């Protein structure tokens, strides 16, 4: 059991790579989950709510390698519905900048072709 699901130590060093706005958004989130319900993205390995929760726990890698980050269509429903008035959508867009440079980035194939041709 312990082997299957080991305890993951919480370290927050990774978060230093984030910009101040994204850090503030993640910290201020009260984990209500409303943005996750509002999200229209089709690929849902994560959701806006899960992204913020993983950031709170310092697990930036998982966020940056998620397919969800590129599935966001920028509809901003998450930002509009946030009861803490956090700009979740902007945080997601800024996370893409970091994700693009990540060695295991899940940058979508078709976009890659478009850019490399």
């Amino acid at each position, binding site marked *: 059991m312990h082997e299957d699901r080991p305890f993951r130590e919480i370290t927050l060093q990774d978060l230093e790579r984030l910009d101040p706005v994204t850090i503030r958004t993640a910290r201020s989130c009260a*984990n209500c989950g409303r943005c996750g319900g509002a999200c229209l993205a089709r690929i849902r390995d994560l959701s806006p709510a899960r992204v913020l929760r*993983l950031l*709170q726990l310092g697990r930036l890698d998982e966020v940056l390698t998620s397919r969800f980050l590129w599935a966001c269509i920028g509809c901003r429903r998450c930002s509009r519905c946030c009861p803490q008035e956090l700009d979740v959508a902007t945080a997601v867009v800024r996370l893409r900048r970091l994700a693009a440079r990540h060695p295991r980035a899940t940058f979508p194939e078709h976009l890659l072709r478009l850019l490399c041709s």
Partner: protein
Amino acid sequence: MPPKIGVYLCHCYGEIGKILDLEKLSQQAGKWRGVAASIHYPALCSADGLEIIAEDVRQGRVDRVVVGACSPAVHRDTFLRLARQAGLNEHFLERCNLREQCTRAHRDQPALAMAKARNLLKMAVGRLSPAESFEPVSSSTSRSVLVVGGGIAGLTAAENLARAGVNVTLVEKSPFLGGKVARLHRYYPRFCSPRCGLEVLMARLLATGRVTVHTLTEVTGVRGTAGNFMVELLKQPRYVKDACTGCGACLEVCPVEVAPSAALPPGRQRAIEGPGLFPYPLNYAVNRVFCRGKSCSRCVEVCPAGAIDLDQEEDRLSIGVDAIILAAGWEPYDAGRINNYGYGRLPGVITSMDLEVLARPDGPTGGQLIRPHDKKPVRRVAFIQCAGSRDKQHLAYCSSVCCAATLKQIDYVRAVAPEAGIFVFYMDIRTPGNLEELYRRTREEHGAVFIRGNPYAVEWDPGAEELVVTADDTLSGSRVAVRAELVVLATGMVPCAVPAFERLEKDTTGFITGHLPCSPMEVRRAGIYVAGCAQEPMDVSTSVKSALAAAAECLATIQNQSVVVPPVVERHKCDRCGRCVEECPYGACSFDTGGYPAVNPLACRGCGICQGGCPLRCIYLPGFSSREMAGLIEAVDTGSMDEQPCVLAFLCANDAYPALDLAGTRGTSYGANILAVRVPCAGAVNAGWINDALLSGIDGVLVVGCRTTECHYGRGTSLAESRVNNLRETLQRMLVEPERVQVLTAGIEDGQSLVAAIKRFVKQLQELGPNPFKE
């Protein structure tokens, strides 16, 4: 002189008059014995109607009044005012419910309504004929109050009572005042130092000159009731006389170091204690648990004032007071009992009260954020919320303050360690009202990480010399571990035990509280009020509020005016069995010097539970003497019900009576054979009345009380049930079916279900057939 009863019938602008033939009823009533005048009028509650009654009283034509109109639950003050203005004793005014429980309920059966109205009126007249007048009672008190507990609640209550001119005796079991609040570093929501608030309070308290303070004193016994409590006090020796100047020379030489708690190393604390930052009283005190006694005596030798006397002995004193405020406060739950968190075993695991000590500039680390036992700098702090709380193996309840207290302590940590990692393990964060802002600030500005999960364990990593907290974060669905130098357990609050008050009623959590929500401050022993955390877990501001509330309620009691007209004791009938003394829920009934029951008007709340239990019917509330009840029962015409069984229903005035009114008002028909008598509580119904009613041919008797958990007087309904059960055996011996008596319960809005239950009872009576005693 025979009574001159006036019967006044009200048409209620047709509500009553259209169904009942009031002209005929009025003529019939005029012929009854004792009735001097009988009239009907379109609206008795109008100015003209009231004047007719008042004029008759003033002219001496009548000296007792029956008002046949709406329910006594409405227009209460209208007719009370009339009685006062006309100079009529209010117990000589009897209301007869011809509207809610007659015309409204039986509008489809005018003939039966008429028979019921005649019965109800006759019962009212029969009861009023032998009635006696009662005057409101006042008794003299010296206006003195005992406050138990010298924490912020006790001090606040004492200060306010003293400012209102009351003489207060304040007892505190520890050597110094201020309680738990004096030990805090800061209190929320303003984050100011509690010393400031306590100083202001103390200054005002001392300025009154009306408060006598006894420290190191416990209450060992309480006798008596509101207005005349006798309290026994036991004063432990302080071993330091008033000559002490607080210089602290003794502290320098005392060889016995004392640790502030199981998890903290000894700091500057010694077996001789100074008053700390809130110096009241200023005198030092020797803690005999730790002191080596006269074999050491270094402090005695060094004291420049010669104030230390290790031969002092305990002192007993007894004082008389009118009321008691119990503000005994709380203790933190023993964190050592939560095995998997290692309190007292693992270095660096402390409680939130320990952190208050650490944060203070006069604490063992001088306010620095270092691990107390090895002085290792603290880079990460983990807070564990609900440590032992909301846990059936420890405290099943939420102590309500720990969430905000932890958020406050995160502020302490941030103030001295801006870079420290802060982790909070929680189940729910409960920050009502303005405290939500504190929660927001803690996340946003202090960057604390909140992990939703109660940790399974705290373990020690010997290599890194760190604590490891493991939990399941239920928000991310992953298992997480946090390494920390310091783990703070937010333990809950447990009420302080005061043996002298052990017999007071407690709620399921073990705290002493009054009737919620109606009279929360007064416990079920009139004259004793509860304030602060003795009542329930609460924060400082709520504690102050509760102390003010307790002081206000206490003041009302000692104003020498009774709340109700207390019951009368007919001493020539009484055999001094003591049942009333035993059963009174407020302790208002006690034995006088002759061994007879005496009712303390200040403590009586008028429930009538004493009269319900009296085997000889010699203690009774106004309107419920055996003559009055006999008059009422004899007046019932059991044959007028059109073959329907005749039922006498004793309805509790709090819930059941208004419930039946409501059913009538909504037009719920329930048969005109239910004759209701309003009683203050189901517990006020004497089994003798039921017996008399059945012997006089009434087919069935109902006693309807509040639902057992809702009784205003605690046990009224359950007492009624057990008394009726006892009566059933007697009935069986008299060959009366015991099923003719039933106890029901009803809430104030349960009109429909009450009617359904009554109908079932009537059906059962029909199956039994008429009462064998019926003529």
